[in-house]
């Protein structure tokens, strides 16, 4: 079982990639740029995020750019899992590929900032320990779970290509 337990940091609709990774700081490395993450929505975000926190948003999380710096920044700052009512498609794939489970949950709006969550990714359930409630979230298809189990796309490729090709 893959489970994630942590505090929710909660945001609203359309948290786009320009907000998560402001383009003006993208020439910096992830560590330096992460100080500016979420600047337009919550300038305190880089300071208040703690390892294991769960990033929760409402509709259309991660719209805009294909920049993988957005999930890489969240990962660098310690976000363990991302939950939203809905995701923009490239951001969704990027989260999975860098090893952050991305879960669609129609009831994400009921989660408040600071709620303690416990997520069972395989079963598709999110326990809100603070509110003593349980929400359903998407069960990821098998091919995506393989990537999650490996820890991300690179780890998945390393494992699979390594087994099949002697020259790697």
């Amino acid at each position, binding site marked *: 079982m893959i489970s994630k337990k942590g505090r929710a940091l909660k945001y609203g609709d*359309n948290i786009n990639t320009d907000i998560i990774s402001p383009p003006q700081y*993208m020439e*910096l490395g992830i560590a330096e740029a992460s100080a500016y993450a979420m600047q337009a929505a919550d300038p305190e975000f880089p300071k208040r995020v703690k390892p294991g926190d769960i990033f929760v948003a409402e509709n259309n999380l991660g719209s*805009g750019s294909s*920049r*993988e710096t957005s999930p890489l920044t969240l990962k660098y700052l310690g976000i363990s899992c991302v939950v939203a009512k809905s995701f*923009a498609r490239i951001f969704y794939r990027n989260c999975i590929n*860098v090893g952050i489970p991305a879960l669609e949950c129609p009831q994400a709006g009921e989660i408040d900032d600071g709620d303690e969550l416990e997520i069972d990714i395989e079963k598709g359930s999110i326990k809100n320990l603070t509110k003593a409630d349980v929400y359903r979230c998407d069960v990821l298809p098998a091919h995506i779970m393989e990537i999650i189990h490996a820890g991300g796309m690179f780890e998945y*490729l390393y494992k699979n290509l390594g087994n099949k090709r002697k020259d790697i």
Partner: protein
Amino acid sequence: MGKTMSEKILAHASGQENVAAGDIVWVDVDRAMMDDILGPRVEIAEKIKLLGDKVWDSKKVVIISDHYTPPASIKQAEIVKFTRDWAEKYGVEKYFEFAGPCHQVMAETGNVLPGSIVLGTDSHTCMGGALGAFASGVGSTEMLGILVTGKTWLKVPQTIRVEWKNQLAKGVTAKDISLKTIGEIGHAGATYKAVEYTGDTIHGLMMDERMAITNMAVEMGAKVGMMPVDEVTKEYLKGIGIEEYPIYQSDKDAEYCMEYCFDAEKLIPQVACPDGVDKVADAEDVSFTSVDQAYLGSCTGGRLNDIRQAAMLLKGRKISKNVRMLVSPASVNIWKAADEAGYLRILADAGAVILAPTCGVCVGLHSGLIASGETCISSSNRNFIGRMGSKEGRIFLGSPLTVAASAVTGRITDPRTLM
């Protein structure tokens, strides 16, 4: 039941007789495109060394340094150098620098063909759908996977059919079609889906105009923005020496998840208001808004026809003393063609500044950022908070004509009032 062009292309690319919306398929990638900002430097360069340290087919890889050209800082210069050196080390001969925004360069150099799978590390890769390609944006780690295997997985999308009927009125452009469509469908209204633009209005548009529409399909969340291959497509490709390619058209009885129908005759100039591409209004309804910067450029609004339209409106006029107008042609070829046609001179005489072909202004990296409290009217594709500079600045998106008209009056202006 018939098939959509997306289903047909993905069936071919995955080596299957038939696929249907919802299927997960592994496809062979025809072109893997990287830019400087999200290319080799992000995850790829380090990790490819552990995955065989070579690209699967260097002839199918294209690398374009466009975001940080010309570099505004040493860090940007180092990224461009790194990208250039990486391309050489991995035998990627299709490397371009200072040539213009990647999507335009991809199209001009014949790297986007009907029926092909084109994936790139930039979300506006979907522009390639104007040429009938299944073209979409991917992240860097996904690109890493493509570079070492030549494949990736895709979910076959459902398709939204968007039909435009009748002719555009004077002063109304393809960009207005693009904005109107996004305003109706919404910022996330096409998420995971293909959008297929069709109808006699679309068939009547030249390739420059078509690209301004498919470029922005991602602004509705779409995976791809497709257009049928027709005589205009064939002429465009013939013009760059390409005459052989497969053609996949949607069947008449193909299944669509949603259908929209718009009347181009009734369309008037549109703008997207801050801070959402789907916050679309009639330009005349926001004409009280004063502007500080007018930007004509980018992979959405910097093609020859865009520059021609702006030049025709600005001929013999001066832009407002309160406005700085910046022009960045979408490629070096367009820069030269606009110069030969006299358009750049007309724009410069009106008071505009002509920049290098670059992504810099559109995404606030260099060449013209906006300050707090400033407002920009832009022919580019995205008006998210802080994108073009200060997060206290405001961005409106409009057609090249609306940008030019607004530059003249110093406030957002329906171009029909100056024509």
